[in-house]
């Protein structure tokens, strides 16, 4: 991916912001990001940068979902209240939320308690992932005997779903 400003250097800084309810993305290279004063993505308005680019450098924007399919909450509601409509909104508005959550918290991944029911599911999906890797290795080594037994185990785990 190349820089949206100079169109030559590879982009290393990726910015996403919600401007007037639309998701705006911009990719910058190291030197352009410095030039534009982008050091802290949270304390910086993408709109200013986009305007500063002028007409000729119109950046492609990807509009994101405007409304949550489960509860009907909109991007505008989120902007107004700072709250979400339902648990599904985290999926619906995930792109815009990612940077917000990153700025709010110590990390971006939950490492704490997991509901027991899900814990079992997660353990199973981890195991499946592991088995598929083993299967691939076995096939590569042409060890078809192991591959067959791994495949059986995978089928059994998948059947439990």
């Amino acid at each position, binding site marked *: 991916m190349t820089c949206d400003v100079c169109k030559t250097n590879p982009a290393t800084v990726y910015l996403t912001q919600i401007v007037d309810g639309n998701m705006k993305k911009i990719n910058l290279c190291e030197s352009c990001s410095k030039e534009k004063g982008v050091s802290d993505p949270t304390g910086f308005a993408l709109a200013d940068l986009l305007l500063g680019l002028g007409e000729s450098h119109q950046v492609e924007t990807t509009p994101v979902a405007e409304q949550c399919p489960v509860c009907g909450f909109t991007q505008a509601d989120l902007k107004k209240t700072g709250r*979400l409509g*339902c648990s599904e909104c985290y999926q619906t508005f995930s792109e815009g939320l990612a940077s917000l959550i990153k700025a709010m918290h110590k*990390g971006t991944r939950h490492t704490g308690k*997991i*509901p027991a*029911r*899900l814990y079992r599911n997660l353990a199973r999906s981890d195991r499946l992932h592991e088995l598929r890797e083993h299967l691939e290795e076995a096939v590569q080594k042409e060890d078809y005997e192991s591959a067959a037994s791994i495949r059986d185990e995978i089928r059994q785990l998948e059947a439990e779903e």
Partner: protein
Amino acid sequence: MTMKIANILASPGDWLSPEAGHHPVVISSRVRLARNLAKVPFPGWAKKSERIRILDEIKPEVDALVEMQNVFSEQLNELSATEKQVLVERHLISREHAAKGMGSGVVINGAQTLSIMINEEDHLRMQAITCGLELAKTYQMIDGVDTELEAHLDFAFDPDLGYLTACPTNVGTGMRASAMVHLPGLVLSEQINQVVNSVNKIGLAVRGLYGEGTEAMGNLFQVSNQTTLGEKEEQIIDRLNKVIDTLIQRENQARENLLETKETMLMDQVGRAYGVLTHAYSVSSKEALNLLSILRLGIDLGFFPDGCRVLVNQLLMDTQPAHLQHLSKQKLAPEERDHLRADIVREKLKNFPNPPTNRRSGKKAVDPASESQ
């Protein structure tokens, strides 16, 4: 067995009983967890009919918990404004929750150590409260409730983001752990702003008595975690414990310094607080908080026996406006409330020991009870 609101309001929570371990600096520890049902609108976005349906789904499960013995369980619209306010003053419900009515509920155990708000900002806000500095134990209490509930309710959870909450500031563990600390030494020695700033800098919040945006009265502060994602519950509590330990050390240092350099000033303040509290006929809520704070400091400094601490903790609770309003059974004008407050304080402190008769010089009196603290 279900309790009536009158039973709950008649006695203070177990954490205010004389048997609870009353700490010289930390008044209480609280841990709350935010949980939501998956794919159901959060309370702030749900329609009234949806909120009622959610309440009907959650409340029976909460009522059935083994932890909820002698449970008090009610819908918010069944409680009077005064009753709700008493629950706020006891930190059993939030100010926001007190404003709710139909479609919101509260479930409190008989000991008043566990309280569960239904349809506050999240579908569930569950809290445990204990006396003194007991954050890990307090977390375990509420964690048990959560584990039991999750077997019956489908909580919104994402493998990456953890528990999903109405506000992204609570996502992850959904946990807010806090301690109510009494810091008169740091306030009197004018170090408090500096200390509060440095605690804020390391990502913890320091707030006044009733949380966000409230004034720090009675030298009481709440210290809590600001972030909920990226750390395990135990890590957050460890971090909080370390900071609170440091706060306790700083507070104790400040008290020692004050004793060494300004003992007469300290004794004077304690004596005046005692004098006003035991003899006044009208005391405002703010004055009561501030004077009781100084009286408590007097206990911590050994001017009064250690056993007096629980009485001051109870008075801090009982002299708050809604508590008085509830006690009097009739609508009180503010000045009538101040009279009643003074009456209660005088009565409760009738057998409180006198402050030291003679001014001491430089040395802290040895009180056998305080040495164990």
